[in-house]
């Protein structure tokens, strides 16, 4: 069958800006996007740069954006992306600088991974293997499925606005150690991850869960680490205060008390944070968007209260 592939090109040696180039090629019905790209490179245009290796979704080299969302192109079949003759647009991964064409600079990605101290830190080692339940290990296999392809980082909406956010891949990797019964520094790790740029900076948009080609569900791991951090007593974060205030507000009014939520999240003793918040507040007021100081109660608030109570007692 014929396929039309629109590839985003950029060669720093020749081009002042990125552009799209269309390739028309003949491929098999069963072809993946990687098959097509290799065919283009080998038969039509050797200047096209891309990374690829295993062809079997285990090496993580060929993360790219396809029609706007990150995928491993070796396991993405053309026919699944677009009907015959339809548009397939291939771009380099997002949130990473482009080196050339579809090749991105993953150094920022690996530096984040290094930040979380990605290696076992046991206090002491047994003579033979560690004794651990099969369930605890199988649970970790799901995270070890991560092949560091960068798809989640590419499409992470929090990273888009905050380059310092550790990001979904490195945080999922962190979970792999936090949840490993053989590691003895879970608490220290949680202490680090609880800080700025850590677990609380995720906006819970689900993009990482959706694009992960290996079912690692990074966001779920991040949420789990929030729970674990709170359980370990790490409560002096706006993230934790936000969570608590959120629940209180719903329990009391049946809806969000937005003004109070903002205040409690920042913290009453956080002078700089309060000044920032005041500026935001003034701007919201000018535009007529300031939430009510005393919140309205929800209709049938009693029912909501009962639900909240039930959940709290669970």
């Amino acid at each position, binding site marked *: 069958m014929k396929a039309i592939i629109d590839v985003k090109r950029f*060669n*720093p*040696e*020749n081009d002042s800006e990125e552009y799209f180039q269309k390739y028309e090629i003949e491929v098999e019905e*069963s072809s993946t996007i990687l098959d097509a790209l*290799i065919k283009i*490179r*080998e*038969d039509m*245009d*050797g*200047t096209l*740069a*891309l*990374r*690829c*290796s*295993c*062809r*079997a*979704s*285990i*090496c*993580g*080299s060929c993360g790219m954006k396809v029609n706007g969302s990150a995928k491993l192109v070796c*396991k993405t079949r053309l026919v699944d992306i677009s009907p015959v003759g339809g548009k397939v647009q291939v771009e380099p991964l997002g949130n990473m600088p482009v*080196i*050339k*064409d579809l*090749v991105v600079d*993953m150094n920022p990605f*690996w530096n984040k*991974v*290094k930040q979380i101290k*990605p*290696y*076992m830190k*046991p206090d002491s*080692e047994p003579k*033979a*293997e*560690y*004794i*651990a*339940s*099969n369930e605890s*290990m*199988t649970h*970790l*296999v799901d995270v*070890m*499925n991560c*092949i*560091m392809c960068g798809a989640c980082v590419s499409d992470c909406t929090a990273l888009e606005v905050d380059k310092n956010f550790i990001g979904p891949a490195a945080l999922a990797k962190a979970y792999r150690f936090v949840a*490993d019964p*053989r*590691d003895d520094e879970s608490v220290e790790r949680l202490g680090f991850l609880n800080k700025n740029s850590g677990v609380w900076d995720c906006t819970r948009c689900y993009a990482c869960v959706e694009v992960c080609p290996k079912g690692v569900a990074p966001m779920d791991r991040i949420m789990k680490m929030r729970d674990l951090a709170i359980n370990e007593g790490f409560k002096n974060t706006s993230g934790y205060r936000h969570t608590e205030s959120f629940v209180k507000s719903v329990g009391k009014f049946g809806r969000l008390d937005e003004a109070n939520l903002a205040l409690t999240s920042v913290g009453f003793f956080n002078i700089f944070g309060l000044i920032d918040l005041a500026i935001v507040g003034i701007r919201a007021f000018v535009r007529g968007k300031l939430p009510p100081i005393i919140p309205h109660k929800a209709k049938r608030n009693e029912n909501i209260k009962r639900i909240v109570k039930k959940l709290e007692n669970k």
Partner: protein
Amino acid sequence: MSNHDLLIIGAGLAGLRAAVEGVRQGLNVAVITKVHPVRSHSNAAQGGINAALTDRGDDWRDHALSTIKGSDYLADQDAVEIMCREAGDALIELEHMGVIFSRDDEGKLGTRAFGGQKKARTFFVGAITGSAMLHVLYEQSVKYNLSIYEEWFVTKLVKIHGKCVGVIAIDMKTGKVESISAKSVVIATGGAGRVFEPSTNAIICTGDGLSLALRSGAELMDTEMIQYHPTTLAGNGILLSEAARGEGAYLVNSEGERFMKKYAPDYMELASRDVVSRAEQTEIDEGRGINGCVLLDMRHLGKKFIGERLGYLQEVATEFMGIDLAEKPIPIKPGMHYIMGGIKTDSNGATSVPGLYAAGECANVSVHGANRLGANSLLDTVVFGRRSAVNSVEWVKNNKQIDIPEEILSSEKDRFQSILDKPSSGIRPGKLRLEMAEAMTKGIGVWRDEKSINNAWETVKNIRSDYENIYIDDKGKVFNTDLIGALELDFMIDVAESICAGAKARKESRGAHFRTDLKSRDDKNWLKHTLVNKNDEDFLVKTSEVKITDWKPEERVY
């Protein structure tokens, strides 16, 4: 010019394990690799790693016997003894580093059965054992702050006064060509699957190290021993792990018969890989296949079990074939998978070139002989990766760093420039590669004979002369994969010729080398290694004795 005590080419399991050991031994270590370490092909090992744990009553000698029988008695038995004896410690060390091996009910390391062995001694992480190990070794490289030349492509080993003193390499991100001097070099570049088509191997498996070694005067050994894995997908050659059969999957022909009972009544689906691949090919050749395949059936294992223990297989089957393994058998066929042959080393990784070591798939110690047992390759990488680094310590202590002369660097630069300068007409390297690889699969397949080997070799020789007429589109410096592809093809042509030379020389059938014109094993004349050397244009073959310790060659029945 930078310099190191120990420079390791390749960042797969063997390379990283060597690097970690080098750092522990106090050497100034660097790894140079054409892909980021976790992209290395060690990733693709699925089923597990063998080890006889003595504290649970297993015996390394039994593992050694299985390995030697599997090798069709071509493995050097002293090397096999070392590997099997050190397996337990290597496994426990990996576990301590953080590999999340599957557990039994008591929380101890769990096992699964694997081919060619009666005892279940394969330790595993689902069906992603290689990946799980590779990522952990990468973690260790972060822990030890290892210096890594990432996405650098080595084009030449530099030899001065007969010693290996470093490499010339291209920094792919910038196109810069540099010399890196090192007192010792370990080649850990993995396999050469791209010399065949199809293959289970990754696109990066171009046998660079084999050619680098050959060109620097090292010998390759038993190059004719090419493993065809019994369960690969038709077309793209993607691997489905032996773990499937280890966990109980059946092989079935078009008549619904578990045909292995005819070929290996005792071991059935878990006979050695060469035996199972030949059985499948016989069924297919005799008309009991389905579109050139037989069927791998694991429906009886159940969806939950498949998901838990063979999850990656299920992923591959679903994504690439649209088959749910719990619902339908999957068509599979023998496919090129592994090279038992490689750079000849002693059991400490030393090659015949002073200062040059090799470990992993590119090396031939020899522990796999004429046929490798499943789950012995991961073991090979960590045991001999470590040993090569340990062994280099003494060499590093007694040898000074030698600067690489400017002329060597500039002559390499000229070589690349001549490829870049070729006129924009001629043959693309990709096309030549495919032609060569298809000829190799045809000539040096599950079956081979004098004629098919000659045909393959003839094609490769033609490819070598056609190589003069290649051209590449990309004339730039930044990430020029077109140029890298052309240089890889240059390496692959050497590897292909070495394979043909070994195959032509061995006048018998042994393990994976099955000649339809010489069907039996000939211990009298051929209980020997083939050694391939390159001398200007010619590939010369000598032989050497196989080291036999306690296990006398016997008839091989499964």
